[in-house]
């Protein structure tokens, strides 16, 4: 009954304008597929999946901040720090230029746990500064961005890190049949986030705070605790993503992760996470990341100068947010 009602209300014009960016990118992909070779190939698909996976994990982290009307500008630098930490723990034992010669040989998942635990501290600090000191998230995480970058420079001495043990590199490069391990990480994170956002009290409280923080407080929501949990979870996910990004690149430096926060925020927005708070779905975030990465690959295949690629990405971000706000304005 309800389904037929929905169909009857289907408005093609509204559908087009609500999904304009996604449709444009899809059309672009089809065109690129026809005018270039190998666009629709297994290796290109794998390339897409491998690029999307860590970015999706980062975007999931930022999404909680955005849904509660905040943001996290320290995401990219936290990814970089995580990559460097993982690198320092997982350099091959016989590599000559080990950053920490005393570091014992350890399995990759132990290193991952260490990285995640360390990053959780940064998330807790972000959360407390925002929840208790009431510093606007934009400013709080801007400060944290600079702090994390500084810390990363200090511990690495600004030297790039390489010489990873093979088990670490394999995390990024290996695959289970056709499915890259990276995709499995992303899938686990995606399922976890979907469950958290839709089926738990934490998720409901998060949307409530984003919808109306004062009303949420009146309804008995522990606003500070929820915000702190959101920022800790975000940092944990940056930790996982940074671990994977390092493995994938086969090296890490202070430059790793630069600008990832902006890509993540842009992807969330394209995927329907409202900048006005209270709205955003995990499936939408995945679509947002996909759109962004497909755009990049399309431009690569068209042999567009990377400098122009940035211009195109910037335009997509602005248009996506403008369209999102237009939806909101139209409802008023």
């Amino acid at each position, binding site marked *: 009954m*309800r389904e037929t009602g929905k169909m009857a209300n289907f408005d093609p014009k509204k559908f087009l304008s609500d999904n304009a960016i996604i449709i444009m990118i899809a059309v672009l992909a089809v065109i690129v597929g026809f005018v270039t070779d190998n666009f629709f190939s297994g290796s290109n698909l794998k390339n897409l999946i491998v690029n999307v996976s860590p970015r999706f994990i980062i975007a999931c982290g930022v999404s909680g901040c955005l849904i509660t009307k905040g943001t996290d500008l320290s995401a990219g630098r936290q990814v970089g720090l995580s990559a460097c930490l993982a690198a320092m723990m997982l350099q091959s034992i016989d590599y000559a230029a080990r950053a920490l010669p005393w570091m014992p040989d350890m399995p990759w998942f132990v290193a991952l746990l260490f990285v995640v635990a360390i990053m959780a501290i940064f998330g807790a600090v972000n959360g407390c500064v925002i929840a208790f000191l009431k510093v606007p998230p934009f400013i709080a995480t801007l400060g944290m961005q600079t702090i994390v970058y500084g810390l990363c420079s200090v511990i690495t001495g600004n030297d790039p890190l390489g010489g990873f043990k093979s088990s670490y590199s394999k995390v990024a490069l290996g695959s289970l049949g056709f499915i890259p391990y990276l995709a499995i990480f992303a899938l686990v994170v995606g399922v976890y986030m979907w469950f958290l956002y839709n*089926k*738990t*009290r934490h998720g409901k409280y998060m949307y409530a705070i*984003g919808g*109306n923080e004062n009303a949420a*407080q*009146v309804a*008995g929501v522990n606003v500070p605790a929820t915000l702190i949990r959101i920022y800790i979870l975000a940092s944990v996910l940056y930790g996982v993503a940074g671990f994977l990004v390092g493995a994938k690149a086969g090296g890490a430096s202070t430059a790793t992760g630069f600008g990832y926060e902006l890509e993540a925020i842009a992807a969330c927005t394209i995927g329907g996470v409202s900048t006005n708070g209270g709205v955003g779905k995990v499936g939408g975030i995945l679509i947002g990341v996909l759109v962004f990465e497909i755009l990049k690959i399309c431009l690569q295949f068209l042999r567009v100068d990377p400098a122009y690629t940035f211009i195109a990405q910037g335009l997509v971000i602005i248009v996506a947010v403008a369209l999102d706000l237009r939806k909101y304005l139209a409802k008023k």
Partner: protein
Amino acid sequence: MAEYRLEMRDVVKTFPGVKALDHAQLKLRPGTVHALMGENGAGKSTLMKCMFGIYHMEEGEVIYEGQKVQIKGPLDALQRGIAMVHQELQPIPERSIGENIYVGRYPTKRFGPIVTVDHEKMYEDAAAVLKEVHLNYAPKAKLGSLSVSQMQLVEIAKAVSADCKVLILDEPTSSLTAAEVEALFTIVNELRAKGVAIVYISHKMDEILRISDEVTIMRDGQYIGTWAAKSLTTDMIITKMVGRELSNLYPHRENVPGEVVFEVEDFTSINPKSFRHVNFQVRKGEILGVAGLVGAQRTELMEGLFGLRCHNAGKINYKGKELKVNQPKDAINSHIAMLTEDRRATGILGVLSIADNVSIASLNQYLIGGIMLDDRKIEKLVQDNVAKLSIKTPSSKTLIQSLSGGNQQKVLISRWLANDPDVFILDEPTRGIDVGAKYEIYCIIAEMAKQGKSIIMISSEMSELLGMSDRIMVMCDGRVTGFIDGKDANQENIMALATQFE
């Protein structure tokens, strides 16, 4: 010269779910004070906002100085000589008094192609205007350094500075002291003598009968009539405003007050100007009305009891034990609920569904295995409430912001009922709700009391307090000034207590 300075004819304006103005009209003669009266929600402010160009009316016309005009916005209205002092002030406290008076129309001077603000002229003019309305403030002082009532007078100075021909005063005296009211009346009299047509909106009968020449009464967005103020009495105005026998407006109540469940002793705010030394009791199944003027600190007191504001003295005895409330969660866990005054600001979660809005305060009850929420249980809760409170909505997935005010209020009541409250604080439960929905909410309140819940109801509508309360507590300026039994209460004895300033 036309007989009327300004005429509004057959004005229609609808908001989602409510017909705010239904062929309303108003005729202003120059050099008169015209009182505009009606209950809350009768459409007075909406009509004024249409005149001032804040709202665009769907039907009807405005005749200004004999010509049909279209007022495009507040700036257009000001340039035509129509000024308005809003009920809710919109001050810029960090800027000077002078800048606040001339914001948006600063005097300018030119240096060749460069236009700058002429601060010298602005402050000179501001000083002159302040003098004209007998205000002795330095125009360069920050507006934020004044009290709320002083800001209100500055707002009036702003209207005067526009050299207005029509001046709208929307509840100008709600935050003024008696002396300030006298000062305001002096200004109003001077403006009237200059030929300004003044619209005066107020609920205070004595003021209306004293200052106004003509009275127009509205009810439910409709025009009821215009009379000479001399020909009216307080009773006549109330009858015309309410428009029906009071007994039909409220449901028959069958609640029987029992033992005391909620007792407040010496409750005092950390803010010395707010509530202090408050003592009261509420019985099981009792409806306690709370009366007072704007600024009586009724909302602040209730927010203090609910943990939204801090207190530094006093205690709450609840069901025979002392209850400590430091945050709303503490009150909620003890089955105390509070429907807040400002539905938009602190009630609804606008972009969330009705299901989310109903369940948010009681999610702990729908857990499977302590972690996962049971969507079916939540859906059942929502459907039960939709049926029980007759909430009109297409589905439980509908966003609450798309419902009418009355239905939003019912959703919020459902939110708290899901938590099975024993004490339910209702702050202006029917504000901004149309008449039909009001009656339904009264029925819900009566039913809750019958089930033995204790109700504390703040209301600024006198008839609502008289029609619904077993007992009425009256506050003035942060203190409880007395209690009146529901049967003995009337407008006069309530007002006497509500104006008992120290």
